[in-house]
């Protein structure tokens, strides 16, 4: 019984805290639209299609896709990405080959072709849209931290 009361008290304090947080005004994805309403969706922008490689923001970042992938089928039956980025296809397509890490299965064994766990490209690699960040972001990459400077570092 005493434990139940303590739980209730903790709950009440948490509820009070969250009210305080909700009282503040901060930038959220939904903007000023009340919670029970649906605001107007932002206009859709076209996919960037420059085909120029974007630098990674940190070494482990999956490279982003610098071209449009509209209508590209990646399913259990077919993978349009691989028809250019597979090892055997790169001579004709001149596209970057999928990373060699993608040939390793989850037991650490190298396979002859892409590992099933890496098959669905857009799980990690995504095309880019020219949009303003809806939420302020002060991410600083490692080069800026170390003072080495990078094209993306804040000046």
């Amino acid at each position, binding site marked *: 019984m005493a434990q139940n009361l303590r739980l209730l008290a903790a709950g009440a304090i948490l509820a009070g805290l969250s009210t305080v947080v909700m009282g503040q005004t901060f930038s959220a994805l939904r903007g000023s639209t009340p919670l029970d309403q649906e605001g107007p969706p932002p206009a859709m922008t076209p996919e960037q299609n*420059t085909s120029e490689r974007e630098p990674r923001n940190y070494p482990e970042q999956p490279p982003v896709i610098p071209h449009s992938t509209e209508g590209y089928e990646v399913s259990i039956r077919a993978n349009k990405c691989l028809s250019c980025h597979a090892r055997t296809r790169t001579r004709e397509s001149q596209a970057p080959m999928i990373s060699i890490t993608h040939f390793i299965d989850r037991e650490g064994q190298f396979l002859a072709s892409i590992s099933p766990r890496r098959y669905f490209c857009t799980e990690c690699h995504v095309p880019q849209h020219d949009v303003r960040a809806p939420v302020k972001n002060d991410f600083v990459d490692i080069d800026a931290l170390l003072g080495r400077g990078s094209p993306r570092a804040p000046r």
Partner: protein
Amino acid sequence: MTKSDVSQPSLWRRALSFAREIWDVLTRPSAVFSLGFLVLAGFVAGIIFWGGFNTALELTNTETFCTSCHEMSSNVFEELKTTIHYNNRSGVRAHCPDCHVPHEWTNKIARKMQASKEVWGKIFGTINTRDKFLDHRLVLAEHEWARMKANDSLECRNCHSAQSMDVTRQSPRAGEAHQRFLFTGQKTCIDCHKGIAHQLPDMRNVPGWQ
């Protein structure tokens, strides 16, 4: 021996004599109608039959006709709707026969005769469920790829002419590929643009795919 077994030969003989009678009438010169009337009647009948034939042919060359079968309307037509050949900024779109029936008369008739196989498939329910359709999809797609490969993607080129293609207005990737492969004649449209209007079959053994 039953009664019907006995009557059958006589029925056959009657049909034969009827056919011979008709043949006799057809091979005898007309004794009632003038030559002018017969020529004119033949001419008018020719217009009616030829017009009727072509009208019927064109009726089978519409999207309404294609999608009147659920095999088409709930598989390939549904898939088409999300692609650029159905839904795009300018609202110009391709209908089924634009890509799947040759526009030139002789080839159109040849394709229509081939399509009698599809009528057979419809009657016997070869692809009357989604699963059956997916099982047959590779074979069906290969027919279309082979046809387009053989006629140098004629149905694509009915709208997309290489002469009118301005590569400077394409994305760098597309422009480069078209200059390297299309303009040099190394490849034809369907070699690269598979699965642009419908979903793809299992592509594991298709050249250029994984």
